[in-house]
């Protein structure tokens, strides 16, 4: 009964989405406020029905109703409650339902809080949202209905893939989807602007908070996924340049560029056409990510070709939305008036540079991800493009970007003074040079790469701080005045400082982890001692124990440093009986920002156990950096300017009206 109700709610949501796709547009054409306001009610009602449908699926999973295929295939009555809930999006159908639920959530938010938007803009935005929603409702209902029943219900389910039974995975997909799908709002705004044929600084001010919100979630989602892979997959890697990861990195890069170009548009009314294009591209990359992950094309081009229904459907959605929006762009973009002038050396110029490097880096990731697929389809040759490719292309493009980052906020709008900015960054440069020298001396003339990269990261952090010092007048004025100035500084400026510093901190983590990672791999018997990076790890013993739906073998290690006992670490290996598969649960010991990491391999006949132990210096900074970036984003989002709402849009002149 619940399954049927959930299915029915989804069909009703589709019907509402179809109304929302058409009526408000008609209303905007006829300038009828009643018809335009339909969008608001349908968007809210849609949210209600999709939410109901999603709640129905959660209920089915929690009550372990194995008469539903989706529950049978992905759940087990013995599974802990939390994983019964997270198992809802641990499979194709459920995660698509989560996707549309989040889409409806964003649509509902625009409807509920978009009261300060011009009526016709809101009508257009919500209509475009409904187009996307309709396409995905159809996709779910036709190809991936999560509410299908089984004729003869089995007693027990097949259980969720054990790797996915983890708290990191409880939070990671919703975060990532909030990011992916959040970019649909800026996409809808862009398409609405093209449909209306006008765009101004007020538009950018409405779009920016939505983009920022999506970007914050995407940043946290990617960082969380990376940390999950690090501790759950058991070999200490945190980024694999896997196509599935690249699928989330590409929208992040484009979204970061969009965030910056929207600033230029808001402040200076320039880069309009480019900002629109970026909005379209960012969401297109989100759709591409959905296609790559959902269609099975990555698992096998052949699997895709033999069971093409889902893949072709998403490909169709992809083509219609990307092709359609880009055609609309080609047709209407010229109608948008070009905005403010600026010199190449200026804040705008710096942000253009940022956009240039971010989009180019995004393009190299795009090529690296899709080239093997294209080659296999065309020639049948199978190749793998792995980390070396991305290290050779992505990294060189990021170096100039990182050097430029501290200069951006110090340059004035319109016409900047590069020499002046360089003078103000003098202290940051000196700090960076000292750090390079110290690190280089400390590593006793090892490779020059790591000290230079750390110096660059320190330059970015110190540059962000000098911007702050400059603005508050710290050191130049009495402390009280500086503090008062700091309080008066817009939160967006604080956000910039934190976000930029976050980039530097993440870079330090990445460089330290990759350069000075030490590892020990060997087989150990009880009372054996391993020495890793000055730590002594003694294997006390191995015990067996049972969990709710698995059995596990737990090894106990005693960790000591210089003969002083620090802690006990207990890595384990779990075997899940239902699927007959094993997972490795690594044990982590955090020391400052560094971590000790133990994971277990096989047990040999003589009782020795294969063990890998890593010492990963500064590894936590890799994820602390993105958290700091997201925090900066949140500060910026809470800026008064964005809360008080946008100014009245520029009055439309006849010249800017769409040619009708």
């Amino acid at each position, binding site marked *: 009964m619940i399954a049927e109700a959930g299915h029915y709610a989804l069909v009703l949501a589709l019907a509402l989405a179809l109304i929302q796709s058409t009526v408000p547009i008609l209303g905007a054409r006829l300038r009828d406020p009643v018809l335009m306001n339909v969008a608001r009610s349908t968007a809210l009602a849609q949210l209600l029905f999709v939410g109901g449908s999603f709640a129905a699926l959660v209920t089915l999973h929690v009550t372990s109703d194995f008469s539903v295929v989706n529950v049978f295939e992905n759940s087990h009555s013995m599974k802990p409650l939390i994983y019964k809930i997270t198992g809802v999006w641990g499979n194709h159908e459920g995660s698509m339902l989560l996707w549309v639920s989040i889409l409806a959530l964003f649509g509902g938010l625009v409807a509920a809080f978009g009261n300060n938007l011009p009526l016709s803009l809101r009508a257009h935005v919500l209509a475009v949202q409904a187009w996307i929603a309709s396409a995905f409702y159809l996709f779910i209902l036709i190809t991936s209905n999560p509410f299908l029943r089984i004729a003869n219900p089995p007693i027990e389910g097949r259980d969720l893939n054990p790797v996915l039974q983890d708290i990191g995975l409880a939070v990671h997909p919703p975060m990532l989807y909030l990011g992916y799908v959040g970019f649909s709002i800026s996409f809808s705004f862009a398409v609405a602007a093209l449909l209306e044929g006008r765009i101004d600084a007020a538009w950018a001010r409405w779009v920016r908070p939505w983009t920022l919100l999506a970007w914050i979630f995407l940043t946290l989602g990617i960082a969380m996924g990376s940390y999950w892979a690090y501790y759950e997959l058991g070999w200490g890697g945190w980024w*694999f340049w896997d196509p599935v990861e690249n699928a989330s990195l590409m929208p992040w890069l484009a979204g970061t560029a969009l965030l910056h170009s929207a600033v230029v548009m808001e402040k200076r009314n320039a880069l309009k056409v480019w900002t629109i294009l970026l909005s379209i591209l960012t969401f297109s990359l989100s759709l591409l990510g959905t296609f790559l992950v959902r269609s*099975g094309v990555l*698992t*096998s*081009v*052949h699997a895709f070709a033999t069971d093409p229904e889902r893949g072709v459907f998403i490909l169709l959605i992809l083509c219609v939305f990307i092709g359609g929006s880009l055609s609309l762009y080609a047709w209407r973009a010229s109608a948008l008036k070009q905005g403010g002038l600026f010199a190449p050396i200026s804040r705008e110029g710096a942000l253009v540079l940022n956009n240039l490097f971010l989009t180019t880096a995004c393009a190299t990731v795009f090529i690296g991800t899709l080239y093997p697929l294209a080659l296999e389809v065309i020639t049948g040759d*199978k190749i793998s493009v792995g980390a070396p490719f991305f290290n*050779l292309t992505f990294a060189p493009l990021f170096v100039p970007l990182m050097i430029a980052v501290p200069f951006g906020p110090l340059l004035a709008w319109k016409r900047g003074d590069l020499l002046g900015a360089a003078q103000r960054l003098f202290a940051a440069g000196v700090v960076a040079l000292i750090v390079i020298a110290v690190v280089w001396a400390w590593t006793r003339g090892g490779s020059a790469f790591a000290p230079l990269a750390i110096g660059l990261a320190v330059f970015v952090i110190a540059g962000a701080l000098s911007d702050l010092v400059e603005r508050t007048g710290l050191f130049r004025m009495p402390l009280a005045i500086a503090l008062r100035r700091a309080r008066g500084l817009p939160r967006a400026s604080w956000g910039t400082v934190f976000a930029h510093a976050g980039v530097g901190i993440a870079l330090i983590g990445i460089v330290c982890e990759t350069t000075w990672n030490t590892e020990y791999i*060997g087989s150990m018997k009880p009372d054996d001692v391993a020495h890793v990076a000055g730590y002594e790890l003694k294997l006390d013993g191995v015990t067996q124990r049972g969990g709710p739906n698995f059995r596990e073998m737990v090894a106990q290690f005693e960790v000591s440093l210089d003969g002083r006992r620090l802690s006990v670490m207990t890595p384990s290996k779990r075997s899940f009986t239902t*699927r007959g598969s094993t997972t490795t649960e690594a044990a982590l010991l955090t020391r400052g920002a560094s971590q000790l990491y133990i994971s277990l391999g096989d047990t040999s006949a003589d009782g020795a156990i294969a063990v890998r132990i890593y010492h990963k210096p500064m590894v936590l900074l890799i994820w602390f950096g993105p958290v700091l970036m997201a925090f900066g984003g949140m500060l910026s989002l809470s800026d008064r300017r964005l809360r008080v709402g946008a100014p009245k849009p520029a009055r439309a002149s006849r010249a800017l009206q769409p040619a009708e």
Partner: protein
Amino acid sequence: MTRKQRRLTMIGGSLAVLAVAAALVLNALRDSIVFFSTPVMVAEKHVPAGRRFRLGGLVERGSLVHGADLAVTFKVGDGSATLPVAFKGILPDLFREGQGVVAEGALDASGVFKADTVLAKHDETYMPKDVADALKKQGHWKDDYGDKSQAAQADQSAANPQSAGATRGVPQ
């Protein structure tokens, strides 16, 4: 600067960055891509020793030998040919005889494939895609397996847009 000059500066700068990026990509594509082969392809093509590639196939039953100090040897076959593989380190969780495997490394002078990475997927019903494709082409594909890998693939890719779900053997 006039408007035109400014615009030219911008376009020139963009083109320069794009040219650099294109050069980087082409260079990286030449040097850092790795081809995939099965044992029979290795035999036919006479891959020179020392050239890196990915070897895929099924681990021959009864061929796995554990040596001292975590060294292992096993044979990878595809129905028509087999190739001996040597690896030192911890094999992934799902490495089993009779199951699919992908190893990355190069042949040595004596014709043994020295692997520095061994990959297997976390779900036991899942077969590495390159292996499945190659076996399908040669007609060693069991239909039953195909169905299961479909189901597995759904939850594989499903909730973790982030991760491959692959384990790999860590070389010593």
